[in-house]
């Protein structure tokens, strides 16, 4: 049995690699999707290597250059406290990827587990969980987020918690809907008759069928998480100053927009560019997987 599994895994590897490349090719088939993926990867690299690339520190105050317009020395200009906006935008990329990325990952892992379980088991567990999620989804995401933040106080951890809490129900519902259509198929029935354990059926038989829809959903959730984290930063209830959080930067620059408009435009532009590119990429993923996902 153990030997069998290992052989199976080894032979599966090249097939998986091929699938990955065909997926990438699919992503770049259309220019819009290719553009989205390209920008996303660019931001991802910025997030990884931001601290190396940024010419100044996030909170470094260059007093003699304060309020300077964009120039060769400061590509995105200098804000009202003498901070280099380019450096802050780049360093902010790392922040938002960590926050939205980890938040989405946790929401996807927990949401998927709950969705699998709920869809497969059905019955009172499914009923109870789904009605609870329905009641959560009845509230707009931002309102729910504000309620939770009011309870836990503004901090990076609270924002992370909020992203996870707000997106678990959505991920769970998407996964559950796929599970419901998959579990009636013959091969699941066959596995059950063979006497495979529930866990094995869930994770080896059903989960692979859910994965394409899940990948698209995860990408979408990631883009909404960026949006949510930035909105909370903008409202001043999320990440606290002087973090180079893009939403917070827009909020801080709002009062000084007449003097230093660049301090507002660049972080605002970064938010929209990243959100649009992730959405385009999600669209590309959907096409590549050729799945219909209900959003």
């Amino acid at each position, binding site marked *: 049995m153990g030997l069998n599994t290992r052989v199976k895994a080894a032979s599966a590897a090249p097939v998986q690699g091929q699938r990955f490349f065909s997926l990438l090719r699919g992503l770049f088939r259309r220019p819009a999707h290719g553009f989205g993926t390209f920008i996303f990867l660019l931001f991802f690299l910025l997030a990884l290597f931001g601290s190396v690339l940024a010419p100044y520190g996030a*909170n470094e105050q260059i*007093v003699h250059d304060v309020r300077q317009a964009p120039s060769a020395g400061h590509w995105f200009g200098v804000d009202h406290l003498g901070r280099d906006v380019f450096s802050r935008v780049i360093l902010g990329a790392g922040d938002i990827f960590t926050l939205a990325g980890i938040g989405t990952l946790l929401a996807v892992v927990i949401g998927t587990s709950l969705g699998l379980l709920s869809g497969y088991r059905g019955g009172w567990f499914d009923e109870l969980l789904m009605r609870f999620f329905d009641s959560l989804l009845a509230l707009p995401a931002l309102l729910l987020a504000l309620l939770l933040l009011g309870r836990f106080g503004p901090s990076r951890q609270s924002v992370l918690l909020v992203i996870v809490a707000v997106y678990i129900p959505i991920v769970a519902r998407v996964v559950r809907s796929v599970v419901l259509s998959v579990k009636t198929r013959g091969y699941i029935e066959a596995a059950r008759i063979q006497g495979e354990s529930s866990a094995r059926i869930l994770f080896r038989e059903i989960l692979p069928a859910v994965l394409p829809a899940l990948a698209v959903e995860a990408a979408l959730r990631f883009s909404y998480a960026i949006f949510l984290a930035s909105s909370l930063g903008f409202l001043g209830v999320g990440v606290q100053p002087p973090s180079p959080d893009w939403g917070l930067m827009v909020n801080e620059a709002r009062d000084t927009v007449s003097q230093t408009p660049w301090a507002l435009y660049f972080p605002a532009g970064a938010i929209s560019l990243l959100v649009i590119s992730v959405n385009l990429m999600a669209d590309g993923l959907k096409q590549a997987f050729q799945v219909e996902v209900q959003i």
Partner: protein
Amino acid sequence: MYKPNSTLLSKGLALALLFVFALMLSACAPAAQPGGTLRVAIQPLVQTDPALISSDAEVLVANSVYDYLVDIDSLNNNPVPRLAADWEVSDDGLTYTFTLADGVSFHDGSPLAAEDVVWTFDRLRDPAAEYATSSLYTNIATIEATGRLEVTFTLTQPNPFFLYDLSDNHALIIKSGTTEATDFNGTGPFTVENYSPEDRIVLAANPAYFVEGQPGLDHVEIIFFADEGAMVDALRGGQIDLVLRMSTPLYESLQDVEGIQTTVINTNGFDLVRLRSDREPGSDPRVIQAMKLATDRESILELVQQGYGALGNDIPIGPLYTSYHDPNVQPPARDVEAARALLAEAGYADGLDLTMHVPNTGGRPDLAAVLKEQWAEAGINIEISVEPEEIYYGEDGWLEVDLGITGWGSRPYPQFYLDTMLVTDAVWNESHFSDAEFDGLAETAGTTLDENERIEAYSQIQQLLAERGPVIIPYFFPVFGAISDQFTGFQLEAFPGRTDLHTISFK
């Protein structure tokens, strides 16, 4: 038959409506007539009882609807008559006798009498009521009506600033026996025509006002805005005429805008960075000293205030208090190495981590951001917690936290800051400072009638605070105002809410 008629009717109605609308528009346009209406933008009112007011908006309305007994002339910092036409002080400084102006009446028609003044101050000093003023007036022994228009105050000990105390923001004269102090029944230059909370308050000129030629306007519309940016936009767009308070960037953005005159005045107000001195880490005076050494005041003034206002020297007796201010007391020059050394001596060689609590108003969040960077160089690492004012000040949380930034508005005399912030049992002793020598000096300065003795005491206080004071005052902030250039007679006050609307008129 019926249908065409109805179309005709609705067409006619639409035309008529259009005509009325056009009339209304044309009626709005020439509002700029002598007498006319001034439209002021300000934050919404919360309190309307004079004993409870505190914000600029609340004081602005109260100062327009009620009168103070004594006012302060902000140009010379002198007490001047308002409802009191005249006063006499006994030689021992313990008895003040005020003669009220004749012919003053409340908006309900009843005449002002000495009893109203007695009643007002008895209410304000009632210890059971716990008003902000009850500690201010503990020094008053008796208040008596000694004539129809004569009031006599007797003090338990001399107070050279007593007239300033009487002009406190809350000390507006209300009618004796008033049960609802929110009914706007004052003697002031304007009556309240309509108050719709969170929207606006409309004031009309009081035709019976006792000062000849005042007010200069028929109406004042005080329109509530939540956001300074929106106020300034409305001023630019001509929807309002006057903004009494705004941030430096907004003030800068109004320079060279046609039709708008801007004003900036320096004040005695300041943002205060303070460390609790009654427990670790602030109980070791070397810690606050290290913070002072790590602070670069020039950069802060440039970054946070854009160069407006004045540099601070960690002492609440600012340069505008001319003879009381000692220019020889200077803050320490920035020395990061010395700060590190002091911290190491105090046992924080590996750095000191603290949370700084900051209200989200004015330049305070910016000040916190700048300090974080400056102090980090010396190994003082702060986490900033920006809080709405109602959270920061709510349930006296600000008096509990170790490290915080508090804004202190401008006052016409410095004793106020010493008595309410720094003496051992001060109500707002946020740094929990307790120093017997300081308390003695503050008492001397606050009770002596000898001006030279007071100047000497203030000088010693400044040296003492420079040496071991628990607070950092990096700057004294200015206030900014802007008004449409159709108006004249506008004199912005250091406490913007105390600005007189009744001296403003159309050009």
